[in-house]
């Protein structure tokens, strides 16, 4: 078994078409305005995204999907992460793998909607950008699809003001064991987190190339340049590990380990790069008007979804 990480023609096309569409329709700058919060613009594009085949990307054609596999979903998820797309878009891509027949069809077509929810402390459930959703993809160490109506949602104030949080005291009794689908969703999250890590790097590189102090661009100072190089390395490490895990998924006998490593690295890369990105922007980085903090807030949200860092560490040690 040999792995080639160079994009295939299909993957390049997906990256270009989805990446291009997202860059136009969902630039990170949209989040500076309230009209761009809570996944509102994403929702207005839901039909377009469905038509592009995004939601059924990894579902076989005979089941109504686009007939690609996990690697192609990874390419798309990375682009979603790069523009900080609402978690609900990724939730929809995840939900199709947890649903059957009618529901799956409706999700692929964008007629029904899903959102991510996480298990919090004391049995509470937290829902992200879930307004108007029909289904929740409830993530903990496991992944379960449930009806949104099963919960008693109360709105809460999110650290990330660009997305909404609802919380419900409901404890879902249908606790499952971890399935391969939970691993698959974990890789989608890893890909989105890797995309964020790359996005934060690109933003900081652009700023460091143009902002001048002491008569020269700050990117020429090694204290800045080396931080940016480390950001790139962290993003690449997470990205490469996610791709390797995705390509080998279901083929090797070490899936859990590969996925756990991807998730561990990607969570770290997204958060660390967001932090470094703020520092590179100086005082501007501390302001609400600069986009750097948006990467930090999103990274924390995505990193909190699914199994915890501690659970991944246990998984990394349990096997092999």
């Amino acid at each position, binding site marked *: 078994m040999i*792995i*080639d*990480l160079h994009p295939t023609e299909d993957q390049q096309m997906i990256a270009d078409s989805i990446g291009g569409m997202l860059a136009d329709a969902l630039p990170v700058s949209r989040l500076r305005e309230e009209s761009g919060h809570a996944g509102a613009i994403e929702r207005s594009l839901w039909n377009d995204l469905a038509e592009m085949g995004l939601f059924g990307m990894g579902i076989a054609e005979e089941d109504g999907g686009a007939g690609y596999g996990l690697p192609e979903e990874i390419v798309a998820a990375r682009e979603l992460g790069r523009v900080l797309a609402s978690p609900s878009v990724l939730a929809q891509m995840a939900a199709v793998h947890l649903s059957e027949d009618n529901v799956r069809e409706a999700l692929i077509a964008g007629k029904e909607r899903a959102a991510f929810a996480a298990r919090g402390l004391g049995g509470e459930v937290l829902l992200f950008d879930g307004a108007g959703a029909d289904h929740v993809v409830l993530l903990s160490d496991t992944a379960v699809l449930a009806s949104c109506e099963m919960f008693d949602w109360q709105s809460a104030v999110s650290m990330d003001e660009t997305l909404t949080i609802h919380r419900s005291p409901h404890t879902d009794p249908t606790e499952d064991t971890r399935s391969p689908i939970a691993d698959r969703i974990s890789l989608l999250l890893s890909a989105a987190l890797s995309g964020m890590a790359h996005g934060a790097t690109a933003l900081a*590189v652009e700023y460091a190339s143009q902002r001048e102090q002491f008569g020269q661009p700050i990117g*020429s100072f090694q204290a800045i340049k080396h931080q940016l190089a480390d950001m790139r390395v962290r993003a690449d490490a997470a990205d*490469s*590990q996610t791709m390797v895990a995705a390509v080998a998924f279901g083929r090797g006998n070490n899936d859990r380990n590969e996925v756990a490593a991807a998730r561990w690295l990607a969570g770290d890369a997204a958060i660390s790069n967001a932090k470094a990105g703020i520092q590179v922007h100086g005082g501007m980085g501390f302001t609400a008007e600069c986009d750097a903090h948006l990467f930090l807030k999103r990274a924390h949200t995505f990193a909190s979804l699914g199994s915890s860092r501690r659970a991944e*560490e*246990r998984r*990394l040690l349990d096997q092999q």
Partner: protein
Amino acid sequence: MRLIEDPKLDQFRAECRDWLQDNVPKGPRPAEGLALREYDLAWQRTQYDGGWAGVSWPEEFGGRGLSVLEQLIWHEEYARAGAPPSASMFVALSHAGPTIIVQGSDQQKRTYLPPILKGEENWCQGFSEPGAGSDLASLKTRGVVDGDHLVVTGTKIWTSYAEGANRQELLVRTNPDEPRHRGLTWIVCDMDLPGIDIRPITAMSGVTHFAQVFYDEVRIPLANVVGEINKGWNIAMTTLGFERGTGTIAHQIELANGVERLIEAARGTVDPLTNRSMIDDEAIAAKLAGLRAEVMALRSLTVASVSRGMREEVPGAEGNIPALYFGELTRRVNGAALEIFGSSALVRDGAHNWPLHYLESFKWAIGGGTSEIRRNVIGERVLQLPRGPRAI
């Protein structure tokens, strides 16, 4: 990103595995000096006789003429079989050889390549000088043309495995009037020429594997110049680029094995603080799990690098990414034993010899380009950031 599934490659892998299983030397390997050189050459001869030398080198010079994919498979199986690191053959196999394949004349290829593959000759690298390390282009060792010879005077330092080496890839200044990298020449120096004096240097680990080399009017035939005179810089950059290729896969697997040894040892050691296995300690478990994830990331970065390498003839600046990751991670992995096991890890003759691995691990973030220089290169050539201030 995709799996390359090709029964021919699977077959090739199986052949590699079988042959390695039967032929990897089992006896103890000398740590240093001429004994190590002899050992490495003998192992190279065994590989040549078995038909496994230079998997991707041209057939007419003794190689197998296969693609980088087969080369990669060979390296993977080589490492998995626990075959010895290339050590004193490293420069010949991973630097000089590939450089001559790309940049050398036909005559040079015929002269230099077969003896490498046959395990008859080993090479060393004479680039760094006492005054020119990271700033390689400031090197001062002089080469003066005299008839059909280049007369070399000066000194090189940190020359790994110089003792006993047959040949050297040597970078000298042939035109002192041209600034920095413009007046340099890449030449093959036979190490038994009159005027060469080799003085071994002992490393902080106690191992002696490099030396300072002095040149006193050493006469090297001009026919040994690879590329053109005064055009050596580009050749040298080709050489250094190859350092980041598949040549380090064996070291990576060694590193992965190091993490496994740590985990095993932590499992089997009682924590004096809790009387339970050390792996049950949250902080230790988290550290080891993280190292395991990072070792996997290193492998994945290398897969990415090789995937790029299949599409470019000469390695690009991105090769610094896995190299930087490797150098930094190696130090942390090998330092972990001392953090976890305390004073018992300070014993050199223990089952694991943690101190040797720890002390040796520092070299990977220095040799072949320091971590700082790699960050400069990633910043300027991968991210296209503005260059820093440079003298000239």
